[in-house]
């Protein structure tokens, strides 16, 4: 079992390396850092631009292989180079990764758990009122783009704030600047800011998961082993949870691995819309500023996230389905 996980982990490391390398190579060939400097006001001299490009390992005159080698050598010792404004990429990552992680982790956990729970319950009560309501809600959310959901949430927040006459929900930034309210006050402030973006992110995940889990659950509900469990003397409820849900969760774990990529893309929009300075927002900005190193670094970060999620599902899978442990 441990061997299986170690093997998986190794192949993930290779994949992370490949993904960020490809991202670097694509960014290095398609972005044009020179144009960024040429647009500056006042435009710097050609030599100055040349010097700056060389310094940042961005000069298109240098052969691609050489630039790539320099970049890899840096990454190998944990240095992702400098941003186009000559700041440390590492420092930027340190600042922004936490922001994104908080959003992604909270969004995933809330969206997936709620989705699974409500999907499973809807299946048990198939065609009941709960099932119909969640079905309509899920299809609605799936049909509407994540961006629209996020903006709608903002509109609703404004309305709630107006009605209640207080700033209950915040929809810009991650926290209020210059707030001095002690630990609890700061925490409350952060939660107020986090509710909407987290919701925006988890809603689409919730929709997908509740649909998927509902179908998986329906597949096993009528199955013979659930009937056997009840025939043994388990109540319907116990049989549902211990036998049906347990088995129906296994495919959902695999599904989670597949949807995680989309989740990260959604996180990018969410950060942009709610003004969170996370990795997602950063990559959008970096592309517009022709910042090769930053793009590569963010890709690396996202690859790590995806692989971490995959690894987590491997572990969960092995836990839920002990059959893989013995074979």
């Amino acid at each position, binding site marked *: 079992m441990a061997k299986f996980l170690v093997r998986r982990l190794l192949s993930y490391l290779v994949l992370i390396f490949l993904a960020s390398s490809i991202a670097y190579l694509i960014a290095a060939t398609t972005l044009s850092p020179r144009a960024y400097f040429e647009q500056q006001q006042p435009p710097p001299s050609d030599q100055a631009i040349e010097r700056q490009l060389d310094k940042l390992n961005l000069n298109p005159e240098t052969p691609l292989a050489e630039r790539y080698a320099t970049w890899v050598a840096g990454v190998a010792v944990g240095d992702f180079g400098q941003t186009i404004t000559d700041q440390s990429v590492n420092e930027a990552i340190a600042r922004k990764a936490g922001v994104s992680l908080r959003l992604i982790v909270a969004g995933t956990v809330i969206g997936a758990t709620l989705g699974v729970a409500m999907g499973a319950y809807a299946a048990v009560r198939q065609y009941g009122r709960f099932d119909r309501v969640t079905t309509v809600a899920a299809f609605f959310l799936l049909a509407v783009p994540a961006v629209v959901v996020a903006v709608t949430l903002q509109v609703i927040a404004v309305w709630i704030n107006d009605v209640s006459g207080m700033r209950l929900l915040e929809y810009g930034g991650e926290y209020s600047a210059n707030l001095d309210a002690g630990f609890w006050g700061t925490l409350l402030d952060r939660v107020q800011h986090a509710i909407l973006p987290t919701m925006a992110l988890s809603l689409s995940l919730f929709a997908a998961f509740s649909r998927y889990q509902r179908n998986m659950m329906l597949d096993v509900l009528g*199955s*013979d*082993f659930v*009937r*056997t*469990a*009840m*025939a*043994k*003397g*388990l*109540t*319907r*409820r*116990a049989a549902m949870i211990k*036998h049906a849900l*347990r*088995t129906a969760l*296994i495919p959902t774990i695999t599904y989670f691995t597949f949807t995680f990529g989309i989740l990260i893309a959604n996180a990018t929009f969410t950060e942009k819309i709610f003004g969170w300075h996370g990795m997602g927002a950063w990559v959008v900005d970096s592309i517009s500023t022709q910042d090769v190193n930053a793009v590569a670094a963010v890709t690396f970060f996202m690859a790590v996230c995806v692989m971490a999620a995959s690894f987590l599902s491997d572990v969960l899978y092995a836990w*839920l*389905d*002990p*059959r893989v442990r*013995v074979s």
Partner: protein
Amino acid sequence: MSATSGTAAAEQEQTGAARGPDGVEPPVLEVRDLEVSFPGGRGNAGVTAVRGVSYEVRRGEILGIVGESGSGKSVSSLAAIGLLPDYAQVKGSIRLHGEELLGLDDRTMARKRGHAISMVFQDPLSGLTPVYTVGDQVAEAVRVHNPQISRAAAHKRAVELLTLVGIPDAERRQRSFPHEFSGGMRQRVMIAIAIANDPDVIICDEPTTALDVTIQAQILEVLKAAQRETGAAIVMITHDLGVVAGLVDRVQVMYAGRLVETGTVDDVYYRTRMPYTMGLLGSVPRLDQDEKSPLIPIKGNPPSLTDMPPGCPFAPRCPIAVEACDAGEPPLEQVGGEGHRAACIRAGEIESNSWTAHDVYPVSEIAHDPVSQVPREDRGTVLRVEGLAKHHPLMRGALFKRRVGTVYAVDGLSFDIREGETLGLVGESGCGKSSTLMEILSLDKPQQGTVEVLGKESGRLSNRERFDVRRDVQVVFQDPMSSLDPRMRVFEIIAEPLRTHGYAKDRIRSRVLELMELVGLDGSAVTRSPAEFSGGQRQRIGIARALALEPKLLVLDEPVSALDVSIQAGVINLLEELKARLGLSYLFVAHDLSVVRHIADRVAVMYLGKIVEIGDVQSIYRRPTHPYTKALLSAIPLPDPEKERRREHIVLQGDLPNPADPPSGCRFRTRCQKFAVLSEDDRSACREREPELRHRVEGAADQAAACHYADTEGSR
């Protein structure tokens, strides 16, 4: 909850209660006027699946409930154990030890399920939760009803139970997952779960239907042992009149949601008073009948439960129906012996005239086919298979597949089929009969050996020849419609091969109608889609399609095994008739030896990719010489209570060995009942040398067995 003390008490009670006809002891389970209906909605009409069923069982008694699919037999038992879906409406009364079960809430009912009343289901393959070990699942059954018992003690009890139901090395194997167990082993686990808490009633719903015959024999033994151990009353639900014959005390026959005949086994089997029961008994092909008499098919299909005829539900199919039958549903009334009741207004008449099935059902004689008069040697060879082998590589690994072994699916098979002859290829699942069939049908060059169809060798055919051979060899599958577009009309289905082979447009139409008539279907039905037909009719359509091009050889792959017996009989009769009329040859692949005896001229018995015995049907069924053939034949229960009670069954040990790693020497030796009693010296031959297939018996020209110690003279 100790097993031993429970047993002693149970045995006492059993001898006291079950044999005493005075009925002093109250029944353990008593069902009265049970009615189960599933309300309609969403465009479906409501269905009343069970309409007034009553029965009772006492301790130590075994009650058989027999019926075909849709008769309501399973629904009524699910109602008894409280496992019907919520929307089912149940009326009547179900009493367990006098306590009413209907209307109990799930929590109260759960305390009874698996404790006082338990159930064994049909399909053991899907009956266990795949992600828990079998030990855990048995222990769970112990623990739900004894929460105070420790985990370790529950597991100890689980091992005890698994040993009791015959799982070898239970201590270790309890840690296996269900997928590591064969079907028979899983059914043993299910039985272990059912008896975990010494229940008073065990309901067995077709517990052996999904299993091979030799495994069925094992499971029936286990059930008997379980009953001895727990002294429980058993309700045995089945469609197989053989299974219940030797096992049960009383039997009840269900039709269209009602009981139509009930009584002791002997009464019901020997003094049958209801035409449906007669048909059911007459439609079973039997091992114990030498003579080939046509089976009794019951015409038509069971009524749809949404649209019941007003009178006797069997009237549309009953050959002796009279006008009065349609007046009202005949009540279940006493006829003859104590407790023998039948729901037929003419039951009295049947009794006083002592009519049997043959008096009630008109039987058409099957024409003798002229070819069968010609001696076998003088007939042309339609199919010749010589040393055929098919080995599949066994692969492992997800990304990089590596070969970890070889499955010897078919390993050196030789036989031939002559004109107008039916060869039955029989064996249990995994014996390689389907692989053999696929190899023959592929017309490609086999890995080893040769296949010669109508004198042409597979793999050496030009495209033109292949096309021609394909026309001469047609196949009928178990479910012929599953491979077809369900939206196709019957006409298209039958006409398709004709089109492919370039029939003229105007001839197609008349040919299709001709074929429909040939297989006994109404020509006007060609515009309907297959979904509108019943299983038996669909199989007839499949046969019509296969016959469209006037083939010489028909390959039949389990053509009747999915059908109810009464329907099956009609299809078998049809096949026999067609063979005689059209001079066809059949390769009939089946697992049911009774059916094969009925239809085949010669039979080849396969075990692990090899033929172990081959010869003419008479010789093999009357005087099997290979231990496996003997065991197979002995494992099949006869629908004849007296014979069945007197018979000693040979119960083979264990499961089929892994076909990737067959035993050395004789492949059957791990389970061979003869090997077990051989001296150590004699055994070495079985271990070291592979027995060849050759004639063993003096005077039987056409019988060969692959066993070093095959019987050499007629004894059974």
